[in-house]
């Protein structure tokens, strides 16, 4: 039983990471209806930029992070300008494919600038079991994962405040509800989109830092980020709480599946389990746990 809880908690904590990437998707999807496939590439790009600035240019960590933040904001604005603005009113599949293009571009660009080697990122948080928990219950819970979860919680709280309490947040929600109506009451649509992309860039940076520190900064990050897709299917594409809950479900279930089902079928099922779980979910509840039911009219 103790082992079960250990796996469960480790799974939940890694689910927090998925949730973090999914959050970036939700932000952009809510505000502009774009399914940003490039969110994973943005995570990779952000992490690589931090490491690159640190190692190649000797930036200290406290300077590399804000500098990368700036880069991500610029990237977000540029994406909105160059890629999405010309595609306004296009089919959502077209937009989706455009973000696949963006993914490839970013991956190539990041590696062209910073090289393709796996890099270590040290945030100064050690990945060791928490002694307090270990001595009390005998469970191995990573200190790093817990701190990462706390950082995520702070980030989500900040976003929720931003969305619900500020003027920008109101504009964001208005745009999310109805582009045309938002435009007609004088909300600058393109500003809002630029802000959303910048915020998504920031979320990607946080995710990239935490993930990079845990697993090393490498190309594989973009694949891990793909797991945000099943997270979104389970949580619903437009819901921030959905992204969190979906992330936790995916994280926990894939770890449990790997540990309990994996050995019977040859292992390595983590790679596809979340997708198949999402598929089953789609057939039962296509709008996700927290999504709104879509009624199509003709």
């Amino acid at each position, binding site marked *: 039983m103790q082992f079960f809880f250990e796996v469960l908690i480790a799974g939940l904590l890694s689910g927090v990471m998925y949730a973090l990437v999914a959050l970036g998707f939700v932000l952009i999807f809510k505000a502009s209806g774009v*399914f940003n496939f490039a969110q994973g590439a943005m995570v990779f790009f952000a992490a690589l930029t931090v490491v690159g600035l640190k190692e190649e240019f000797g930036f200290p960590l406290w300077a590399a992070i804000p500098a990368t933040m700036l880069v991500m904001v610029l990237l977000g604005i540029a994406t909105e300008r*160059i*890629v999405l603005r*010309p*595609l306004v009113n*296009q089919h*959502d*599949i*077209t937009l*989706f*494919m*455009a973000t*696949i*293009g*963006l*993914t*490839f*571009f*970013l*991956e*190539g*660009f990041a*590696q*062209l600038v910073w*090289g*393709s080697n796996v890099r270590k990122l040290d945030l100064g948080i050690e990945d060791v079991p928490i002694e307090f928990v270990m001595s009390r219950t005998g469970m191995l819970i990573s200190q790093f994962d817990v701190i990462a979860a706390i950082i995520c919680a702070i980030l989500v709280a900040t976003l929720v405040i931003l969305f619900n309490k500020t003027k920008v947040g109101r504009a964001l929600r208005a745009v999310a509800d109805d582009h045309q109506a938002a435009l007609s009451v004088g909300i600058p649509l393109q500003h809002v989109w630029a802000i959303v992309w910048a915020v998504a860039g920031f979320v990607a940076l946080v995710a990239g830092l935490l993930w990079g520190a845990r697993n090393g900064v490498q190309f594989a990050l973009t*694949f891990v980020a*793909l797991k945000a*897709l*099943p997270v*979104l*299917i389970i949580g619903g594409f437009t819901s921030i709480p959905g992204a969190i809950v979906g992330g936790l479900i995916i994280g926990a279930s894939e770890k449990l599946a790997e540990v309990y089902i994996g050995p019977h*079928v*040859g*292992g*390595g*099922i983590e*790679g*596809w389990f979340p*997708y*198949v779980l*999402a*598929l089953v979910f*789609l*057939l039962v509840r*296509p709008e996700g746990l927290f999504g709104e039911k879509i009624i*199509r009219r*003709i």
Partner: protein
Amino acid sequence: MIYRESGQYKTSYVNDSQIFPIKQDRYAVLAIIAFAFLVIPFIATPYFFSAILIPFLIFSLAALGLNILTGYAGQISLGTAAFMAVGAFASYNFMLRVPGMPILLAFILGGVCAAIVGIIFGLPSLRIRGFYLAASTLATQFFVVWCLTKVPWFTNNSSSGVITAQQIQILGFKFDSPQEKYLLVLAIVCVLALLAKNMVRSTVGRSWMAVRDMDVAAEVIGFRIMKTKLTAFAVSSFYCGVAGALYAFCYLGTVEPEAYNLDLSFRILFMVIIGGLGSILGSFFGAGFIVLLPIFLSFVVHATGLPNSVTSNVELMVFGALIIFFLIVEPHGLARLWQIGKEKLRLWPFPH
């Protein structure tokens, strides 16, 4: 020869619904096919066959398959490579386990297996659309490759998961050299492309496009949505399956499941986007473009004296940028540009 259609009166509906209604097009296409069959085998070098022509033809076939699904039936798929893998490994096993199995039949059966997998993973498309479907096809991609890697039966208990494709022999004739393999692939691709063209110009194709453009209206007219979508999945997967088998038997020779990874799926999606969604000819343009681009880029990188590692990254960037460029500027891809060019040529030199 001037490109004109004046004087070519169509006096019957048969004439009007030909594949290439304009006489010059018809002759040009016949000339190209004749050239590919009769001249190229004697002038091309082995490198040219195995690095450019064979992959070009195989990718064209895969792109054609994906184009049927995405371009004609409007169902996006990120799992093309998985269907190719099914085709390849199924063909391999048919050859391995059925004594005296003719290779062409093995290819066809490989395609059929891929079609069955396609139908199974296409079932969710009945309830979901757009990027939900993209996510579910990702499930196909990861699950199939995992399955092929983990179940030893599929790879004949090969410890590394690598299989070696059997020798190709048809009616006692061995296809060994790149030249012979090229001719085989060319013949298969020509036949399948013709079949695809027939499908898209008849009711099957119209049902796909109808469901793509407005599914509710299609249903009201009497198309059965489920049948239409699943047919698209089946046909598309069949094409991809055959392409995958050719990829193993005529191009790589030895294959592991990982060769059919997500990257390959994306590459084929790019061919379809750049070549032209909903165009048979576009699939060939797209495949040619994506096969030639890396060769061209590595040539440029060499010429400028940059390190080799730059090539693959520049390749990613150029692919990405081109996708975005085509989606913004010409969503119907190279095929549309080709058509515009022909329209201009029709009027040239008197454009007014």
